């Protein structure tokens, strides 16, 4: 994570135009300290890195919705999911989308969680996941009217992202996850560009496109940036990691971190 912070700083310094930092889900928990802190260490580090938004994926939901709401309050960026709703009233539990204003452009980012993401324990009775395509069909026309560029931040998986694109017109970019592809170029489906990049924080994806005044993308690319030792640790993020490691030392042997199955 400390290398990632350095890489992001360098990318911000060397790229002109609008630079966004996004996470497409299942990033907050899994490893010991991140799981035991219910995503606390990741949220603090990602806030320091200046993430602009995160969508929720299966691994994130294992922390529990109440814990995620607490993490969201601590984060400097929104947690997005348009199709994670309350059973009671079918209203989104987290923000469905965010609209950022950068360099005179309005950029909408819609969050979608995979429909089979585990909602653990007591959460299963309180929350549910709606069909992501139907949800996107509800939001995209509205966002298209409000924004110059429309990004879907998706944890549906690569094939599902393609189906989404075919079912819902008007999406410019899908930044995805779940199926963990390393991509050397974005997938072009109709007028939509799809990208995702690796897993475990070993890579950052760098998606680039030039959007004309009319919002038409050109000169697009996708490249994995491997976080090799040439990226020095960012001292502030390294300090955060050290603090959390001291707070929750890794036990030996490591207990099972398998989440409670949904009831």
């Amino acid at each position, binding site marked *: 994570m400390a290398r990632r912070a350095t890489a992001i700083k360098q990318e911000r310094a060397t790229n002109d135009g609008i630079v966004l930092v996004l996470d497409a889900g*299942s990033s907050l928990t899994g490893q010991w300290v991140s799981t035991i802190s219910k995503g606390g260490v990741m949220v603090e580090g990602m806030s320091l890195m200046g993430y602009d938004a995160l969508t929720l994926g299966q*691994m994130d939901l294992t922390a529990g919705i109440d814990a995620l709401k607490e993490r969201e309050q601590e984060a400097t960026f929104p947690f997005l999911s348009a199709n994670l709703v309350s059973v009671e009233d079918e209203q989104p539990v987290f923000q469905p989308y965010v609209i*950022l204003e950068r360099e005179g452009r309005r950029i909408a980012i819609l969050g979608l969680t995979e429909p089979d993401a585990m909602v653990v324990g007591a959460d299963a009775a309180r929350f549910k996941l709606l069909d992501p395509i139907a949800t996107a069909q509800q939001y995209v026309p509205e966002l298209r009217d409000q924004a110059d560029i429309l990004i879907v931040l998706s944890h549906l998986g690569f094939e599902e992202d393609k189906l989404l694109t075919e079912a819902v017109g008007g999406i410019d*970019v899908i*930044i*995805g996850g779940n199926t963990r592809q390393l991509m050397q170029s974005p997938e072009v489906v109709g007028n939509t560009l799809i990208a995702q*990049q690796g897993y475990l924080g070993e890579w950052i*994806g760098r998606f680039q496109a*030039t959007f004309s005044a009319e919002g038409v993308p050109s000169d697009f690319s996708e490249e994995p940036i491997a976080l090799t030792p040439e990226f020095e640790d960012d001292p502030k993020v390294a300090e955060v990691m050290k603090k959390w490691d001291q707070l929750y030392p890794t036990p030996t042997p490591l207990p099972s971190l398998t989440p409670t199955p949904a009831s």
Partner: protein
Amino acid sequence: MDHRLQLLPFRWAPRLALLALIVVAGTLTACQPKSEPTLPPATQVVAAAEEATNTLEPTSAPPATATEVPPSPEPIAEPVQRQRRTAEATTLTILHTNDVTGETDPCG
């Protein structure tokens, strides 16, 4: 003469009561502290762009106070609209991660 004098109070009573109500209502309104101006959503967008922080929609963020955003005689939404109409081609870079699964030090 006597007849007119008897009618006068009945004619004027409703008008006097209405006048009194208007005066009382005006006094009460004037005594209320001025409410904070509610900023249109576009104001929050502009402020967010300047500070490079997120503008959250549709969750209603607490409105910025008047001291944070100087009052402007012009509608704040206008500059945003003009920028959108005159926007040149823009390069968008998205640095993105996924499925980090809480790994703080994947190479360690």
